[in-house]
């Protein structure tokens, strides 16, 4: 876990009169749909009908799990299944390389996934549709999220960095992934608070440019803390 080089006692910049940043955490209970896919047609049918929580689940749940090896395709379950159960390596690569940061919502992500698979099917009209072994069917799942206060509030950038270095991985997951893809909790996005409440546009821009997808969350935490610490040190040198 990364460690901030600052402490709550060394406040370089207070956010007087402005709301602090409340950290939240969440716990998830996996929900099952009973919907299975054995081929690309059934996968497309599922992608069109399952709820948004299922699309989110299959593109994000692996970030909460310890990985013994680098995950295939950024932890995208659809891509992994297309590769391992159907043996369609070229399509798996296209699905797995969808940049979720380019999607503003789960609806965007769903439409992109469907478009990529439809385009692949249209481009290979003569190719025989592969069928997964029944034991390797794709099972659509989702998860129910329960959001709780993490018991941490930051009233300065220094406090913010200190808490970021210590929050649980579930809290980090919530602020990095859930807050960004849910317009209703946009104010819980780190970059939004830093820009709108602290007025630090450059720093917010740096945080927004961090790509959380191709790496474990702990690596992201380390880089985030490093950026915050560098900014705090630079401002300290100026004052």
């Amino acid at each position: 876990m990364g460690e901030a080089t600052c402490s709550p006692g060394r406040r370089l910049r207070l956010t007087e009169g402005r709301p602090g940043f409340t950290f939240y955490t969440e716990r998830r209970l996996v929900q099952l749909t009973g919907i299975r896919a054995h081929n690309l047609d059934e996968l497309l049918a599922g992608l069109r009908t399952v709820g948004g929580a299922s699309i989110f689940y299959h593109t994000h749940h692996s970030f909460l799990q310890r990985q013994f090896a680098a995950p295939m395709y950024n932890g995208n379950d659809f891509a992994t299944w297309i590769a391992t159960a159907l043996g369609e390596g070229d399509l798996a690569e296209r699905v797995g390389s969808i940049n979720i940061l380019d999607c503003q919502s789960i609806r965007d992500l769903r439409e992109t996934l469907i478009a990529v698979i439809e385009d692949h099917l249209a481009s290979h009209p003569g190719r025989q549709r592969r069928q997964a072994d029944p034991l390797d069917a794709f099972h659509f799942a989702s998860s129910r999220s329960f959001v709780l206060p993490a018991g941490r509030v930051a009233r300065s950038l220094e406090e913010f960095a200190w808490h970021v270095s210590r929050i649980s991985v579930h809290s980090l997951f919530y602020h990095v992934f859930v807050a960004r893809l849910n317009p209703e909790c946009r104010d819980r996005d780190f970059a939004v608070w830093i820009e709108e409440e602290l007025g630090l546009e450059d720093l917010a821009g740096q945080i927004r440019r961090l790509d959380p997808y191709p790496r474990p969350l702990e690596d992201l935490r380390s880089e985030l803390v490093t950026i915050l610490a560098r900014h705090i040190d630079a401002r300290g040198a100026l004052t």
Partner: protein
Amino acid sequence: MSRVRRLQDYAEFVGPEELREIWSLVRHVEGATMVHVNSTRMGGGVAEILEAMIPLLNSVGVSARWEVIEPLPGFFSFTKALHNGLQGAPFVLRQEQVDTYARCQQLNASRLDLNADCVIIHDPQPAGLIRHRAEGRSRWVWRCHIDLSAPDPVAWGFLRPYVEQYDASIFSIPAFAQQLPHNQFMIEPSIDPLNDKNRDLDVRTVQDVLERYGIDPERPIITQVSRFDAMKDPMGVIRAFREVRRREDCQLVLAGGGASDDPEGQQVLAQVREEASHDPDIHVLELPPESDLEINALQRASTIIVQKSLREGFGLTVTEALWKGKPVVAGAVGGIRRQVIHGFTGFLVRSVEGLAYRLRQLLHDPSLRQALGSNGREHVRNNYLITRHLKDYLLLLLAVRYPDADITDLAGAGHP
């Protein structure tokens, strides 16, 4: 007898942050009542989990009870056949069995106290209690521990009308879910790292157990711990062992007990004993229900643990072995596929030949055994300890209270 444990006793395994988050959930369900109903007090994974879970739920402020149904003559023979049918074996249903099942549910419904916020009914045996549900605020949840991925249509056709009346279902892995008219959740089983079956043991205790059963501590030990059940394929394990022993000096331990709701166990045990009767290196141990310490010692003394199931709900013996840092070779079925990550926490096999090959490979490679075992323990620490299971039950209480929302903001700061 183990003392009643509290949540904080688990801090050494999962860390304080995890416990803090569980306590923060507890605040939202404190005072809730829960009753679990199953078919046996001793034997098998369900009873073992409930024995640990009920006191733990109570220790965090959820008032939890455990009720066990009483059978009528012929009831368990029928439910064992039903169990096998739900796991895919051919199943024939006779009217007198339907009548016995219904009468048994009625008898137990009038006998048991099923008044609670959340009533959790485990497996098919007591599933019919739902027909006797009283009016009120209780939420009824069917908790399925068996492999329901490809059930016999007659078996599922019998049970399904009961299951459909529940408010929710719980399955151990996604492949077991069905198309049902209510919410289905996945809650994976768990082990208690502090009970006699899983706690650390000193070397002397382990040696004493080996000595008691005549097992040589100096030669490699391959062990399968499970009920004597055809679905666990003990005969297949013996065939694989004999193939391995053509060139490797090793011993096989087949250890298990029975459960009061499993009348087929004695037949399978007799077959296994007959098969092993002329081989001093095959140790067939029929252990009584209170043998947790012995099973712990046998697992810890083993070089490799096998679980060659042909069907499996989850496979808690695999979890126990992984927790003890042992390499596991297991059938690629049911919940085993989630626990044994092929090449990282063990090996998945689909045949006697495959099992024999992996046993030979592991017997020759101590560093591979060590690496698999180390990964396996971490895998269990992160996913299959009872603290995670407790958290899932707390979330279940919330999920049945708020059945419709994908995201529930317990912070009271608006709906995110």
